[in-house]
């Protein structure tokens, strides 16, 4: 019972966060000062998530294995050259696996 209450309460609270600016802004346009900030949101959010996931996965700074760095670098390079994000996984995972097997990770 407690589990259900916690899950539902956390869901409601998270939804409140999701609609916060929708409700605050209502029919008004997004303020001028906020537009350029939002344009930077994509790079900032993605980089923060990737950085924390690979270099601090357990709450402490932990340099990632070489296999991870090689795979991420190769994925970024290939996507940058081809403009096809789907290749990140297709290139990165096999490279990570090979590097891991060759004991670089």
């Amino acid at each position, binding site marked *: 019972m407690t*589990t*259900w*209450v*916690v*899950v*539902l*309460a*956390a*869901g409601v*609270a*998270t*939804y409140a*966060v*999701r*609609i*916060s*600016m*929708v409700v605050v*802004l*209502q*029919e008004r346009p*997004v303020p001028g000062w906020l537009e*350029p*900030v*939002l344009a*930077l*949101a*994509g*790079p*900032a*959010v*993605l*980089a*923060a*998530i*990737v*950085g*924390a*996931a*690979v*270099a*601090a996965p357990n*709450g*402490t*700074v932990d340099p990632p294995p070489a296999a991870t760095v090689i*795979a*991420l670098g190769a*994925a*970024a*390079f290939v*996507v*940058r050259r081809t403009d096809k*994000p789907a*290749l*990140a*996984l297709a290139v*990165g*995972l096999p490279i*990570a*696996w090979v590097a891991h097997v060759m004991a670089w990770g």
Partner: protein
Amino acid sequence: MDEHRQIEASEVRPPMIDRRAVIEGSRDILPVVVAVTPLAIVIGVAARHSGIDAGAAWAASFVLCAGTAQLTVIELLHAGVAPLTIVATATLINSRFVLYSATLARWFAEEPLRRRLLLALPLVDQLFAVCERRFRTVSTPAHRRSYYLGAAVTLVVAWSATQAAALSFASSLPDVRLLRLAAPLVFVGLLARTVNDRAHVAAAAVAATIAILAAGLPQHLNLACGILAGLAAGRAVTERVR
């Protein structure tokens, strides 16, 4: 006459849903769906091993619709932490959604409030990342609405179904550690396409650095700190270029 008016009205009114845009959104998010599959499996296995109510743990996949927060809720429930603390923790972890909320308000500025409130239901990192890039070049409300729906439904259905499968077959699943790299790989792919100028580079570099260095902060606040620092750095570079 009335019939004429009805025909004219139906010709003028744009369609609610653009089927091609739905398919496009669904297709564009598929690599991300593949990438989050390992995390969904990890969450399903963790929920099964934690011994908490399996139905509630699975319901969190679409009620919360946020992987990190869901995993945290499962771990804290398993550890016997007070319910109020767990809810506050999950909300703090998801505090970055405020930023997404402002962006969603801009994407769907032409939609009625009630519809915008519904569209906010599945708003999460992966959906935001895919739509944020696509919507820079999509101008019609029907296309945006349809693309978003296609991507959101695909993501949430796959996410919940994978967790249900993982919960059911938890004891017979292989080691999924290497697959945990899938999500960072996809995010790096999206990042490589998103970074287009010096301000973007500064925002990304500072956000990643602070998110790593602040890893010791409680409740995954390092993510929020990194994002805010990245935004400030990107803004500073933009101002200097002007």
